[in-house]
Each structure stands twice: as C-alpha cells, then as structure tokens.
C-alpha cells in the first residue's frame, strides 16, 4: 500500500509572540524603527531613500513619457501624471520604511482593479459586450493571456501552431508580445511574476486583506499540490484535443475579462464552472483565509511558473540563528510557500512568489530576500534592493497602463456620465 500523504495543515497564526524586548535575540543590535518594522527592516534616512528612488524616477519617466511630451487631452495627461506620482511615491515608501509587501500590494491591487475596468470598458466600446463570439475567434481577436502558455508548448512543438484564437503578431496582446514579456519576467523574477506582474493575482491579494483575522486557518497541505495536478491535466488534455482546456473549462478570471457567448448547454456549464470558481477561489476563500487561494491552490500557470524559480537569481531565505519558530511566516504566506520543513531547511518551497509578506512579518528579521550564491546573513538589505529594482520596474511599467486606463475611464464617467465613448 502506498503511504498516505501527511495531512499536516499549513500552520494557523499563533498567539502573538512575546514582546520584542523580552526575546533572546533582543540584543542582536539591529535597529528597530518607530513604525515597528522590527530588526530586519532597516529604515533609511529620507535623503538616502530619495537617492534610491531616483533611478526609478528616471526609468519611469523614460518609459511613461515615451512620446517625448505630455498628452494634450487632460483626460489622458491627468491619469498619466497621477499614475507617475503614485508609482514613485510607493517605491519611495518601500525604500524609506524597509517594508516591501504593503506598498507592493497597494500597486498590485490597484493595477488588478485597473485592468478589470479598462479591459471591460474597451471590450464594450469595441465589441458591444464582454462576450466573445465565434466570429471574434475566427478573426483572431482574442487577446492572449499568459495563463495559456503552458498549454501551447506541446502542440507548438509538434504542430508548429498555437492552439489559441489570437494573432501571432499585431493587435492587442498578440501572442508573440505576451510570450516575450513572459520570458523576460521569468528570467528576471522567476515566480516573482505572480506577485509583481499577474493582474489576476492582484484581485485575490486585495480580497485576502479585507479581514483582520482569518476565519479558516487550517488548510491540508495536500491541496497545495493541486495546481501541479491541474497543470498536468490541462497540458495533457490540451495537447490531445488541440484546444486550450483551462480557458474553455476552468479559468475563473473570465468573469472579469471575457468569455464565450452562451450559445449552447456545454458553454452554459462552462460558464457556471468559471463563475463558481471565481466566487469561491478568488473572492470568498481569500477573504476567509487571508491567503491567495486561487494562486496557491489552483492556478496551473503558477505551478508552471514555480519551475522558473529554479533559474532565477533571487529567493527568500531564513536565517536559522534568528528564527524562533514562531511560525508567523508560515501563517501569512499567501501562496502556502512556507512550512516547518522548508523553514527548518532555511528556505521557502518552490512556489514562493517573492511578495515580501513573510520578510515584513517576521518579528526577528530572520527572513530576507537573498541572491543565490551569496551569504544568507548580513546582505539582506542589498539583496532586497537588487530584487526591488527589476521587480518594481516590471510591476510599474506593466501595470501603469492599466491604472492610467482605469483613471481615464473613471474621469470619462465623471465628465460624460458613461465609461464608454
């Protein structure tokens, strides 16, 4: 008989650990700051934080003002300026306070909401509805989403075709552009893409922060393997049927983007499935568990992206000398990437999205961003900045268009009474 998988659950949040001063590492000598960031998060001076933000300021100015001058239409220029200031302010706060996750999440959630507003408005403006017709698909008008990538690989290798009703080149979100973006993000950030890029993850990140305390704490560990099971299933079925199975049957995010027009019973069943998955995994469970349940317990793209962590320079490590085994990191990790096994090995599981939540949450500063090949202790601030620059630039450039687009639509609503032109 095969041994059964351990039914260890991911740890619930423990009682609040003892006050910092009474812990044996209190005398470690690291600075603590008035905002309670703890010894691992060194607060910079304002001057140093401004200096650290300057490269971001210049890079963002270069990327956003690609045309050389501001748009003349205030409905375009105001969103551009607001987004620019918003972006720079968040990076400054990250650099100044030493905290990562809180400010990353503010941008990440805003970007996800911005995506939903922009995408749906564009669809209604161009197509008249969110529904995707057979004609749209025949004309290759379906924007290519990164979630499709794993399913396309085997068919592309064997048939030299992409099993998706989009365009290879040209148009909005064409296949080549999205794949190039994904390759760049994967090389630079690994599964960091899931916390510094994926506009769907931002929705769950937002919902997971609504409650102060989780209502559901125990989640059996075996469910954290489901994304890999889903990945295998959809890759195999997609290859055999030459159709993107996840898109057709499972993707919860069709609820807030686009979906096939309900013209048959089969499509009705598919619609019920994806709406239920959205309600359950993206809204309700994140609220109740304070975790990103779709990302951590279902998303096959996340599972696929986990493997890119193996070829990425950055990871998150645990300094065992500082760790008091309070399990706070295990309790807060949104993607269930920390457990007692991984912490005892001084690292995270392969599914770590480098969001920084555990790093910020650790009361002893035992967790830190780390560059592979370097020492774990003593370099945390430097490694963090090495990661933050590419991570934040990707987040900001990828997401600023969505935020600007949403602001434009909201201003259009305020001035004309409709989000659609």
């Amino acid at each position, binding site marked *: 008989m*095969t*041994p059964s*998988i351990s039914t260890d659950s991911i740890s619930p949040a423990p009682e609040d650990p003892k006050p910092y001063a009474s812990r044996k590492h209190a005398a470690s000598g690291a600075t603590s700051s008035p905002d309670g960031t703890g010894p691992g998060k060194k607060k910079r001076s304002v001057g140093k934080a401004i200096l650290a933000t300057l490269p971001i300021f210049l890079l963002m100015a270069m990327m956003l003002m690609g045309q050389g001058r501001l748009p003349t239409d205030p409905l375009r220029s105001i969103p551009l300026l607001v987004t620019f200031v918003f972006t720079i302010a968040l990076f400054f706060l990250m650099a100044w306070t030493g905290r990562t996750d809180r400010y990353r999440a503010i941008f990440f959630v805003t970007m996800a909401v911005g995506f939903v507003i922009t995408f749906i408005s564009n669809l209604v403006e161009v197509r008249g509805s969110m529904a995707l017709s057979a004609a749209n698909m025949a004309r290759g008008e379906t924007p290519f989403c990164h979630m499709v990538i794993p399913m396309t690989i085997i068919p592309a290798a064997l048939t030299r075709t992409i099993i998706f009703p989009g365009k290879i080149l040209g148009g909005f979100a064409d296949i080549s552009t999205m794949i190039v973006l994904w390759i760049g993000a994967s090389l630079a950030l690994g599964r960091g893409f899931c916390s510094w890029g994926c506009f769907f993850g931002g929705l769950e990140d937002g919902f997971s922060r609504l409650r102060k305390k989780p209502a559901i704490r125990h989640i059996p560990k*075996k469910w954290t*393997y*489901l994304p*890999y*099971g*889903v*990945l*295998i*299933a959809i890759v*195999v*079925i997609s290859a055999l049927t030459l159709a993107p*199975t996840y898109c057709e049957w499972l993707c919860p995010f069709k609820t807030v983007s686009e979906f096939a027009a309900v013209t048959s019973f*089969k499509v009705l069943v598919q619609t019920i499935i994806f709406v239920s998955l959205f309600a359950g995994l993206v809204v309700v469970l994140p609220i109740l568990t304070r975790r990103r349940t779709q990302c951590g317990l279902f998303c096959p793209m996340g599972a696929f992206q986990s493997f890119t962590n193996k070829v990425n320079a950055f990871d998150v490590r645990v300094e065992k000398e500082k760790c008091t085994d309070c399990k706070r990191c295990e309790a807060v990790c949104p993607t269930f990437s920390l457990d007692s096994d991984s912490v005892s090995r001084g690292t995270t599981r392969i599914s770590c999205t480098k969001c920084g939540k555990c790093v910020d949450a650790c009361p002893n500063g035992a967790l830190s961003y780390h560059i592979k090949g370097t020492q774990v202790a003593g370099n945390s601030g430097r490694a963090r900045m090495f990661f933050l620059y590419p991570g934040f630039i990707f987040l900001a450039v990828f997401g600023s268009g969505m935020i600007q687009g949403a602001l434009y639509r909201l201003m259009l609503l305020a001035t004309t009474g409709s989000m659609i032109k």
Partner: protein
Amino acid sequence: MSGTPSTVASSAASTLGTQSAAASPTVLPLILGLLTGINICPPFLIALTKAAESGSALDSVRFFVFFFLGTAVYFLPMPLLGALRFVRTLQTVGRLAAGIIGVYYFYVGLVTFYGGLKQL
C-alpha cells in the same frame, strides 16, 4: 467492475476460497486476465469475435500472443519510472491530476452517451 484490481482480485480470490491468491505473482495475473474478459475490453472482444468467425482457437491465441508482444514494448521502461514512486510529492500530484483527468473522461463519456441516445 469497480475498485482497484487488487481489491477485485482479493474478493474474487476469497470467493474462490484461496486467500493467498491475491498475493501470488502467478494467480493474480491469471484472475485479472479472467476478469478482463467480463469487463468489456476491446482487444479481448476482437479476439473473441475472431475466434467465433474463424472457428479456430489457434487464430485467437496467435492474435493475443502478438498483442502481448506489442504491449510489452511499453512495459520495458516502466520499471525505471517505478523509481519515482518514492517521491511523495509526485504521488500526490499524480493522484490529483488523475482525478481531474478522470472527471474529464467522465464528461466525454456522458457526451458520447448523450450523442448516441439522440440518434436512437
């Protein structure tokens, strides 16, 4: 037939009064082979119909010998894959994937059945 091959074989073995049959490396395959004929297996049906058509048991046996040789090719690398059974993560992932694919096949079966009913 429902249940894993070993549980089915165990219950068949206890019915036949041989408690240790399920554990035997010769009796178990024999029982499974007998049960496969009761379970609708297409290659088995082909052999049965050939036997009925030709009236020759020799033809049917020859069919099955070469069928065995054909399937044996796939079993050559299997013992190597068996080394992976010690990786518990792969066991869990495999079970979950099999569950999902099972649901998919159930759906395909339902659609095929419904399509067949419509034609009646």
